């Protein structure tokens, strides 16, 4: 019994122990939830999923699109500000530092309201999808800038010297040494950030971008099935984020011996 419930130091759990303990945790969680539902005398009814499936699929697609496009744009914003933070022109450097500090220091929901209602209105960006993606990318770009900056700092100067010693030109050094090593150093964190972008995009429901969360908000506003609606919402987000998180962990393990 002891070797099933406890992990010996510096060892991996056996398959049996892993299965038994996973089951145990799941049963406990479900039981807690079940008892809570009974306490408030609720029965769950998920039949609305079938009724609203078209809207749900559209909302899901919108969330995937926000995540993907947001990730690409925020990557470039992050790359530019990471490079800008070590720029020789002091004003550029300060600008990038300030951008990263302000964005990381304030909540996304405040930025959404500020950018959409003030800047968006002032500059005529009225398309909610476009505005949403821009706001989301600005927010995530600051986090990606930090990931990339940490990666650049973790590069070993000796590796760059070795690249010169074997006769690589600057371009070849970037292509064959710097970029591959930067990828190894940053891809696991970047993948994790992608999962965050998908979750953070839910806040765009505040400016009525009809993505997954907004779809559920609208549906539950008419049928009052709040519990079922948000449970299902959580399930759909997990379908997106869990595989990405697992991928991120795998990449981290795979790259460990290379970095």
């Amino acid at each position, binding site marked *: 019994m002891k070797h099933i419930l406890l992990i010996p130091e510096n060892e991996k759990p056996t398959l049996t122990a892993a299965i038994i303990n996973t089951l145990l945790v799941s049963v406990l969680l479900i039981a807690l939830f079940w008892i809570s539902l009974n306490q408030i005398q609720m029965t769950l009814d998920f039949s609305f999923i079938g009724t609203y499936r078209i809207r749900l699929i559209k909302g899901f697609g919108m969330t995937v699109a926000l995540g993907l496009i947001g990730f690409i744009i925020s990557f470039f914003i992050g790359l530019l500000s990471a490079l800008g933070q070590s720029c020789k022109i002091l004003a550029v450097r300060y600008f990038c530092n300030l951008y990263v500090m302000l964005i990381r220091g304030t909540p996304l929901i405040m930025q959404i309201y500020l950018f959409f209602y003030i800047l968006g209105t002032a500059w005529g960006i009225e398309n909610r999808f476009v505005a949403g993606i821009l706001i989301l990318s600005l927010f995530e770009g600051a986090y990606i800038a930090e990931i990339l900056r940490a990666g650049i700092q973790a590069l070993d100067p000796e*590796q760059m010297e*070795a690249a010169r010693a074997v006769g690589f030109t600057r371009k070849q050094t970037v292509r064959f040494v710097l970029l591959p*090593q930067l990828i190894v150093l940053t891809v696991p964190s970047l993948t994790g950030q992608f999962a965050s972008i998908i979750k953070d995009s839910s806040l765009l429901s505040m400016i009525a971008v009809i993505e997954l969360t907004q779809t559920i908000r609208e549906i539950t506003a008419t049928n009052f099935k709040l519990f079922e609606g948000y449970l299902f919402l959580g399930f759909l987000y997990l379908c997106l984020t869990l595989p990405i998180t697992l991928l991120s962990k795998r990449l981290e393990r795979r790259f460990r011996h290379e970095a």
Partner: protein
Amino acid sequence: MKLEINDLSLTFHGQSAPVLSHVNFADSFGSLAIIGSSGGGKSTLLRLLGGLISPTSGEIRIDGDRIPTDAASLQQYRKKTGFVFQNGGLFRHMTALENITIPLIQVHGYSQEAAQMRALELLKQLGLEQDGNKHPAQLSGGQRQRVAIARALAARPSFLLLDEPTSALDPEYTSEILTVLNQLKQEGVQMIIVTHEMGFAWHACDKVAFLQNGTLLEWGESASLFQSPQTPQLKQFLSKLLEWNR
């Protein structure tokens, strides 16, 4: 090879004290060891010889040709040398084989097949035929340095530059690498080595140069330099080393 160093000085940017000051040297050798206390400028001198950095003043000539100072010619010059670093010289994200083949293909214009053949030949010569597909982290310290030597030799450079190639190694790996270097020397590979291995400097190198506090105090035939050092600094340096080696 013939090496001439004329009034070479180097002060790093933003520092007041020079790392090397007024170094002069003129001699011919097949192998030269540079010895001296840590922080004396040995590795810096080797980097100057390898064209990895440029001096503040003075010049270096190898077989009569001056080492250039502009970036483009330096890159061409580096193609003709083979540099082995103390420890971290292999590209971590490449396998042992790729560490050798990619520079051959990209820098020296080898075809994929020719590079592969040359790399396998060298790995075999250095006893690493089983390890070509491993990453540096999967190799022992001694194996890593042998791969680094193979990479440095791959494009048939005019000479090897070795920066304390054994100082990060266990004693058994140290002798393994020194044996390899000695064999290469017998085969006619010319080299300049910065080392703390006095036995190797004495018995395997033709000439030895003694560098202290950025100044080249003494150089000459290795046997005579070790047996009858001229400067008090070298006498002191050698006697300190011998204290535990009697």
